[in-house]
């Protein structure tokens, strides 16, 4: 096997590293530490001070996140002041582990890619912090909530800023922990606690992939920092089998974190967390970490075309999977979660197309971060006004009661549909175009991925319009709250609406602005430059077809969910609808394939442990007791019988002695 052969010859490559243009030192990079430190300190203060921080804790959280954003903005200005070729900086923080031959440095990489993430995370994060101040106002544990949010922001920033896989892994685990804590924030409700555990376990499966990838990388390159790995992968001295193995392991990690097929089942359940969490972690930022990992490891995937193809396939499958599930969900948050899954499928598909798709994947990631977070906050606002109702069949006509939520949600809806000139048009359309570009002169890939992306766009239009119409248009289908009082939908307070308005503004204009200011060129120092290649169809035709698919989906949803009355109890539906309602039997498949055999295995191990190991120990004990029981009968307590035994013994002894002498 290739892998094993190369494992035996590590440290071939570090010599090659010297040839690569070493990142230029830049004093501004030192400030990057504060990006992570601010929210981390705030989280520590909030958790350590306890109830004493209850009154002002949430504002400290907002401030820490905003502070990180300001630092990020400063770094952005600093980088913009440098020529494009000098925008990749590795900031050395010190030696982290030093054990003989193994020496791992802690360092941050400030480059256009990480800074894009930093700005997205801190900007959207700050808005969601502000929103949460009002959303969680009546929750007794609001301070703890903000501590976790800050912890998440710190971990996420560490993840995207790390300059090596080891430090990235720390952030990777940190966001997993924060995600777990926040999904299970209301863990006194058993299903929520279970959902948190499910997310944690699914993420763990992905983490194993990352660990394996790190092991392979270390064995192959002798180092885990991005610079060495990039140089080594580009040098072409490593066998393709090794690179494919590394790529697939990285993909597994990405699948776990980004809820991609086949590890996507946790995302829907993760909606158990408070809605701001769903907006920040499970829509805008953390779930995109997988996309980040794939793009950051671009050199590995370039050297492993097979792994790259698998990435694209996983993206395409998830894209359709999420879209189909989204069409059938009646829970507004779960429909949005399915949509997130599908949109990240787009990003992973783009990331699987190679350098041509990297920039567009990030572009879509950024616009998606805005419009999806905006829609989640809108959903939270709807729930806020509707007594935590999430069933869209019990909404309807809310647009007349919540004007701001209505219009901000509409901006997000049009953006995700890809209606020009909203943000999604500029990003998603580019991905569809890129999907139609033949790779390595293989037209079948262009056709398959292109058509999947196209169908996905139509499905997206359908399920998002369905969600929008069921919630905001049509007849009102609500009457009473859970406790029987009359339902009075109302607009949310200003602290909640302002973040939504800002995000809506991003949903409207961000795509246009970013494509005008050259976002793709800005990313080039990090993700590499891709030559423009012609897709198999003419670009105007692709745009036309995409818009046609979107309009079709929109009209279909309009006719079924806005014009006609939506039944309050879900109709039986087709077999596909019924399957999609239960996530296309994802949980059942997992149960049958993994959980049941796993439990069988553990049960048989427990049985084996009881029968063999415990059996040996308890058997020995029982045998001792049995022998003792037998011997005990001799000790009958009658002095005369003891005397008889002695007499017999002496006589026997006498005979023996005499016989020996005789």
């Amino acid at each position, binding site marked *: 096997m290739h892998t094993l052969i190369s494992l035996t010859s590590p440290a071939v490559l570090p010599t090659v590293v010297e040839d690569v243009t070493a990142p230029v030192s830049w004093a501004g990079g030192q400030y990057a530490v504060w990006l992570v430190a601010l929210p981390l300190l705030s989280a520590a203060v909030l958790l350590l001070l306890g109830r004493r921080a209850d009154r002002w804790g949430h504002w400290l959280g907002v401030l820490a996140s905003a502070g990180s954003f300001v630092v990020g903005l400063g770094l952005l200005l600093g980088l913009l002041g440098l020529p494009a070729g000098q925008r990749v900086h590795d900031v050395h923080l010190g030696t982290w582990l030093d054990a003989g031959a193994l020496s791992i440095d802690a360092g941050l990489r400030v480059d256009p890619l990480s800074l894009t993430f930093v700005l997205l995370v801190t900007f959207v994060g700050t808005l969601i912090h502000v929103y949460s101040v009002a959303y969680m106002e009546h929750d007794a544990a609001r301070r703890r909530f903000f501590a976790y949010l800050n912890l998440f922001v710190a971990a996420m920033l560490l993840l995207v800023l790390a300059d090596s896989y080891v430090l990235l892994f720390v952030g990777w685990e940190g966001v997993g922990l924060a995600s777990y804590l926040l999904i299970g924030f209301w863990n006194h409700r058993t299903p929520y606690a279970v959902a948190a555990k499910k997310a944690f376990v699914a993420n763990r499966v992905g983490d194993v992939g990352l660990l394996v990838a790190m092991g392979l990388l270390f064995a192959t390159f002798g180092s885990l920092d991005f610079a060495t790995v990039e140089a080594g992968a580009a040098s072409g001295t490593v066998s393709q089998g090794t690179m494919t193995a590394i790529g697939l392991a990285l993909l597994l990690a990405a699948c776990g974190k980004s809820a991609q097929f086949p590890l996507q089942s946790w995302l829907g359940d993760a909606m158990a967390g408070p809605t701001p969490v769903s907006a920040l972690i499970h829509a805008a930022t953390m779930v995109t970490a997988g996309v980040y990992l794939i793009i950051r490891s671009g050199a590995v995937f370039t050297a492993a075309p097979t792994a790259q193809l698998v990435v694209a396939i996983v993206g395409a499958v998830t894209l359709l999977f999420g879209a189909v599930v989204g069409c059938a969900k009646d829970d507004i948050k779960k429909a949005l979660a399915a949509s997130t899954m599908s949109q990240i499928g787009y990003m992973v598909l783009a990331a699987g197309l190679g350098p041509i798709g990297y920039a567009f994947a990030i572009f879509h990631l950024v616009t998606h971060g805005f419009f999806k977070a905006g829609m989640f906050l809108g959903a939270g606002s709807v729930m806020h006004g509707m007594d935590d109702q999430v069933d869209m069949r019990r909404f309807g006509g809310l647009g007349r009661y919540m004007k701001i939520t209505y219009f901000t949600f509409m901006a997000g809806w049009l953006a995700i549909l890809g209606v020009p000139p909203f943000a999604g048009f500029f990003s998603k359309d580019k991905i569809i175009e890129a999907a139609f570009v033949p790779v390595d002169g293989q037209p079948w890939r262009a056709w398959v991925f292109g058509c999947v992306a196209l169908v996905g766009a139509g499905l997206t239009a359908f399920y998002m319009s369905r969600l929008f119409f069921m919630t905001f248009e049509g007849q009102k289908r609500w009457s009473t709250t859970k406790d029987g009082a009359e339902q009075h939908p109302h607009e949310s307070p200003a602290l909640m609406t302002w973040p939504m308005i800002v995000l809506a503004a991003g949903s409207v204009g961000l795509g246009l602005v970013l494509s005008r200011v050259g976002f793709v060129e800005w990313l080039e120092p990090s993700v590499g430059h891709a030559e423009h290649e012609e897709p198999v169809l003419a670009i105007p035709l692709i745009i036309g077809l995409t818009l046609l698919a979107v309009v079709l989906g929109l009209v279909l949803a309009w006719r079924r969910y806005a014009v006609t009355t939506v039944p309050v109890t879900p109709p039986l539906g087709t077999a596909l609808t019924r399957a999609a309602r239960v996530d296309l039997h994802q949980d059942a498949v997992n149960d049958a394939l993994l959980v049941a055999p796993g439990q069988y295995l553990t049960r048989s191990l427990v049985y084996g442990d009881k029968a063999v190991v415990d059996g040996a120990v308890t058997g020995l004990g029982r045998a001792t007791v049995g022998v003792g029981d037998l011997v005990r009968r001799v000790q009958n*307590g*009658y*002095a005369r019988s003891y*005397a008889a035994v002695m007499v017999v013994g002496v006589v026997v002894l006498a005979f023996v002695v005499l016989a020996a002498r005789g």
Partner: protein
Amino acid sequence: MSLTHYLVLAAILFAIGATTVLLRRNAIIVFMGVELMLNSTNLLLVTFSRIHGNLSGQVLAFFVMVVAAAEVVVGLAIIVTIFRTRRSASVDDVNLLKS
């Protein structure tokens, strides 16, 4: 009288004593059996002492008597105590240690 007579007598006495100890329940009688065995041994000691013309056996017989006397003192005291508390002098009743 030859040596054999002494030895046979001693053996008979010892057998009677041993049988008494093994078969009788009354603690006093059991004691008497024990004394009988001790005295049969004394008889042997004295016999061999005389045959060999060596006084050690005679001296040892005295020792045995002294020890037997002491043993009787202690033993009888125990028996009397047991009889007082349990209203019985049967050795078979004294099996409290066997729970």
